[in-house]
């Protein structure tokens, strides 16, 4: 916002929030930038998303917030039918440099209407870019790239990562969209994860390395555009793939990765591609039930062992 006056933020409680907590992403922005550029909105997701689409078509760079991922359904007409399509159907005449921040997360007992990761819905819709930072560096770098990208970008913020320790990069620090990161190099099995699921995968590494298995962990960072080169290079090296996400496994984003690898690197595969994700139920509230839903490190371990036939 310091860099460009066309950037403004809008959403429910982005200025004055019920949580006046420095860990919240828009904390302090109202004081710094004032009510012209920090817009608290009514509880109107369609209008919030429409604000972003219309204002971006006029050359502004809106950064709007959808409070929780399941609420994106209320904004989905504006995102799916408009943000993603209007440039294409204008024949390339218009552009929509907007950013939608959406808060995601499973595992805090909020239940299914506050927790429901719908990234596969959005990725299925042409014209939308989607990034999902897992580290402090990427939280800044991907957000900044999203804001200054000429196309609509959805930035998913895993709420469980708001308290993540890390070094906050100074200045105009950007991570390019569409570039995955090899978080841990390895030789026996590729494990792809994004957001909070990256840490689930990381936890599984301890057990796996005790068993003498070396995993290469890829932090996907960007679902659209997809860094196919990074994934294929890794799978061609290891011959195995496990995909981990917290969304429902059925028709989840992992299915796309599994299919893409099967189509493009089948000859390199030494075992079946495995997907770790949630069963096909809404997120239940009781912690004993939520554990059934949320994939844990033991699920990743089991998937790696299966594909290794061990």
């Amino acid at each position, binding site marked *: 916002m310091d860099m460009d006056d066309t950037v403004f933020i809008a959403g429910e409680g982005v200025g004055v929030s019920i949580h006046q907590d420095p860990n919240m992403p828009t904390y302090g922005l109202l004081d710094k930038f004032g009510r012209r550029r920090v817009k608290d909105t009514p509880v109107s997701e369609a*209008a919030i998303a*429409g*604000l972003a689409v*219309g*204002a971006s*078509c006029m050359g502004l760079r*809106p950064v709007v917030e959808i409070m929780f991922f399941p609420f994106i359904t209320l904004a989905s007409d504006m995102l799916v039918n*408009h943000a993603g399509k209007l*440039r294409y159907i204008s*024949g390339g005449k218009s552009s929509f440099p907007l950013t939608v921040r959406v808060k995601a997360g499973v595992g805090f007992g909020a239940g299914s209407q506050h927790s429901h990761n719908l990234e596969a819905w959005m990725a299925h819709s042409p014209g939308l870019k989607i990034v999902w930072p897992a580290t402090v560096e990427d939280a800044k770098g991907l957000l900044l790239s999203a804001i200054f990208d000429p196309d609509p970008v959805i930035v998913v913020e895993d709420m469980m990562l708001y308290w993540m320790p890390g070094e906050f990069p100074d200045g105009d620090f950007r991570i390019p969209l569409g570039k995955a990161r090899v978080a841990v190099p390895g030789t026996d099995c590729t494990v792809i994860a994004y957001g909070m699921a990256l840490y689930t995968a990381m936890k599984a590494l301890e057990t796996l390395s005790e068993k003498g298995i070396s995993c290469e962990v890829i932090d996907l960072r960007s679902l659209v555009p997809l860094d196919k080169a990074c994934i294929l290079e890794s799978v061609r090296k290891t011959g195995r793939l496990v995909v981990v996400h917290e969304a429902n496994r059925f028709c989840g984003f992992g299915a796309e990765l599994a299919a893409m690898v099967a189509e493009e690197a089948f000859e390199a595969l030494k075992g079946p591609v495995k997907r770790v994700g949630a069963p096909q139920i809404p997120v239940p509230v009781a912690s004993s039930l939520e554990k059934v839903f949320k994939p844990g490190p033991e699920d990743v371990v089991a998937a790696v062992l299966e594909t290794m036939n061990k």
Partner: protein
Amino acid sequence: MKEEKITPDFQVRLFTSMVLIRKFEETIVALSQEPYRLPGMQILANGQEAVATGVVSALESEDIIVSNHRSHGHLLARGADLNALMAEIMGKADGVNRGKAGTLHLAVPEVNALMTSTVVGAGPPLALGAAFAQQYQALKSVTVVFFGDGAAAEGSVHEAMNLSGLWKLPVLFICENNGWAGAQRPEEHSATPHIHKRAEGYGMPGRSVDGNDVEAVYHLSLELLEHCRSGKGPAFMETLTYRMRGHGEQDHQHYVDPAELDAWALKCPIKRYRQALLNAGVGDEADIQSIEQDAEERVAAAVAFGDASSYPDPDTAMTDLFVRPPSA
């Protein structure tokens, strides 16, 4: 600001605009009856020309239009290129949107007809975004959004009216009440017979006007645009008009009483205005016929242009999605 006083020259321009729209859409009716000539559905605003012409003639060039599936009149009144519009409707490469929009999603940013959505009720949220940009940049321009009586039942319209009213955005909401939402009359889909009265609940003036009287539409548009332009926030205009054809050209109006159609045909905005101009001595029969002839020729030339244009190269199907496409 535009002239309040209507000169004979201006009257001729209003008439010419309506005639062009009518001829254009009558030609689409004819083309749509030829097999495989036009792709997709043809959704026309025959009978509603006075709304398009009256509102758009009141705009300044920097004002923004957001339109819907019944957009031809809005775009033609705005001065969009006739040839490129017709080619687009025919699905040709020289179409205004390179064959990717067709009739339903025509957007012509070069005349500030910035966005068009065929999703019923989607225009108002888009319009509030454009209007926010106008307010944010302290521009003096206004965003005008056209939607129907059917769309007025969409939640998105209410969200957009509330937010526009709250933030005092320069949006002029134009509800073209054409008597039909699909095959449903307003009394079957609206809790109130006076849609414009909802405006009060969203902190904006709501007015209605005879939508078949082009000068009345023009005058009320000027008044409400001035309200929006002066920073007082949005305004709402309900234009009472009539959809002379079906929802689309495949709809043969089995549910419409022919006597009602006949009655509205007598109130045709173009016939009415034609007679008014003759009565006022603005022109004689020969002048009027020359305007009509000219419109016919322009539309015929547009069809010829569309016919001469090729279908888009299949490779272009994969372009225009992103400004910065994935490098792979």
